[in-house]
């Protein structure tokens, strides 16, 4: 009652860890059997290895947290040679998060990483708020987002999902632009731009000054954006933003997501994805569903369901 099929992805269940919140799976593989997961969204890869921003990189906020990791990663070669092979022992589709400072960067990473045997789809990170170049810049301009999507689609061997930024006036506008540019799906939302100041020094707590806000605090923003975008486009959405429980998963599916990703909650409870997957069947029954598919988009009374939902 949990399986979902999306472009490039045959998911045992609709729950996967969100990019940047699960590393490359290594640490969690010591805690539970990763075969349980619907998929794994691995940490962003850039062409070159990056240290990222200076510390402090995280700060707590009411019901949420700020992070400014800054795309620290071992670089494309490191990911392909070390991280991805380690995940081959699991029967779980990998969604590779692709980042960079220029269209060429994205194309380079997308072309090579999409050829890795266990990479089933790409997630174009055009919404990272924590880097000076690239990242969010691509995600806030429909034209740039579309151009990038098109360029990456040309070189990718697997379906391409575009990760949308919530820091925009009209998220539907960006969603439509990337759909038209050939995106196979959307993932949303990335973090909201935020800041916290230290009362003693007066200065920002994060070395990077601003950071990305995630966690329960942003859930209502995510729900409304997914609700809106799922009406505006007909490609599927993987939803995220503050998910902490099986009930939250249900709310995201109702809003119009076809699957979900769990981010920050992995830090609070490293077993959370596994626990949510265990709880899903009973919770679905409790609310009268015999399959997760039935929940998708239920908040839109009159919305025609996109094709892949009818399958």
């Amino acid at each position, binding site marked *: 009652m949990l399986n979902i099929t999306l472009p490039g992805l045959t998911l045992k269940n609709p729950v996967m860890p969100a990019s*940047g*919140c*699960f*590393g490359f799976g*290594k*640490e*969690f593989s*010591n*805690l539970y059997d990763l075969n349980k997961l619907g998929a794994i969204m691995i940490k962003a890869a850039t062409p*070159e*290895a*990056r*240290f*990222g921003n200076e*510390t*402090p*990189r*995280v*700060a*707590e*906020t*009411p*019901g*949420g*947290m700020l*992070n400014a*990791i800054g795309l*620290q990663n071992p*670089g494309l070669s490191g990911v392909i040679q070390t991280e991805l092979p380690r995940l081959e022992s699991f029967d779980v589709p990998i969604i590779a998060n692709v980042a960079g400072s220029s269209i060429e960067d994205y194309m380079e990473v997308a072309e090579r990483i999409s050829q890795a045997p266990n990479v089933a789809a790409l997630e174009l990170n055009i919404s990272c708020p924590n880097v000076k170049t690239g990242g969010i810049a691509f995600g806030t301009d429909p034209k740039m987002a579309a151009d990038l999507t098109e360029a990456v689609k040309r070189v990718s061997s697997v379906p391409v999902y575009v990760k949308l930024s919530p820091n925009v006036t009209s998220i539907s506008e960006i969603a439509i632009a990337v759909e038209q540019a050939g995106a196979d799906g959307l993932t949303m939302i990335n973090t909201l731009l935020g800041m916290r100041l230290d009362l003693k020094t007066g200065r920002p707590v994060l070395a990077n000054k601003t950071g990305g806000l995630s*966690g*329960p605090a942003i859930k209502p923003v995510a729900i409304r954006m997914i609700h809106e975008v799922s009406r505006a486009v007909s490609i599927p959405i993987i939803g995220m933003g503050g998910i*902490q429980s099986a009930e939250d998963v249900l709310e995201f599916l109702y809003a119009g997501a076809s699957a979900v990703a769990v981010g*920050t909650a*992995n*830090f*609070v*409870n*490293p*077993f959370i994805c596994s626990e949510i997957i265990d709880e899903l069947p009973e919770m679905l029954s409790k609310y009268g569903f015999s399959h997760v598919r039935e929940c998708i988009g239920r908040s839109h009374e009159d919305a025609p369901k996109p094709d892949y939902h009818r399958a």
Partner: protein
Amino acid sequence: MIGKEDMQIVSHKEIAKDIFELVLQGELTRQMTKPGQFVHVKVSETFVPLLRRPISIARISREDRTFTIIYRKSGEGTALLSSKKPGEKADIIGPLGNGFPIDSSLKGKKVLLTGGGIGVPPLYELSRQLKAIGAVPVHVLGFENIEASFYKEEFARLGDTYFSTTDGSLGVKGFVTDAISYHEIEFDSLYACGPTPMLKALETRYTEREVYLSLEERMGCGIGACFACVCHIPNDPAGYKKVCSDGPVFRAGEVVLSC
């Protein structure tokens, strides 16, 4: 193996000004071995505050499956933790990180354990284990003042123990380095935990000896997945170590002490 457990609070008391000793019981204790490891504590049932708090393991008692943490009530999280009562449960993840290295080569050696403030707690289990293998622990503990000091007799029972305080109300007035100089303490290796400036001073001073330092850094996950707690390493711009999973204990010089 890292585990997660709702552990039983066996005892919880204020042992010095704003310093609490919390004893927890449960299966997780069986996984705890090395001194210098820490646990990640959920301080509230709701998601406020959202993140866990890293606290060092101060004593492991495998017989009765209890372990002890000692923490200072400082911000929102530790204040909430301090209101928990015996009989209640606490949600713990651990043991985390790699502790201080201990092996039989230390037998008969004089090992100086130096701690500042809330860096003192992990040294207690460390000292117990060193003594157990036949090493000779010597302690130099720094506190703000005598009111904030704790475990003085407990340490004294394990070996020579000296103090420094900022105001001179206990031991030498000044820092732990002042106390080490004043008492002309000799040692073979040095294990330290405390504020970064203290660690830095020790690292700079004792370049000839074997020195291990336990670091603190703001954490997200505590298990190596979020990259919140990284430090630079010398001579490699993209290189790094994670305090939570590669540390918190590093050999002096292994990481750049500015984080």
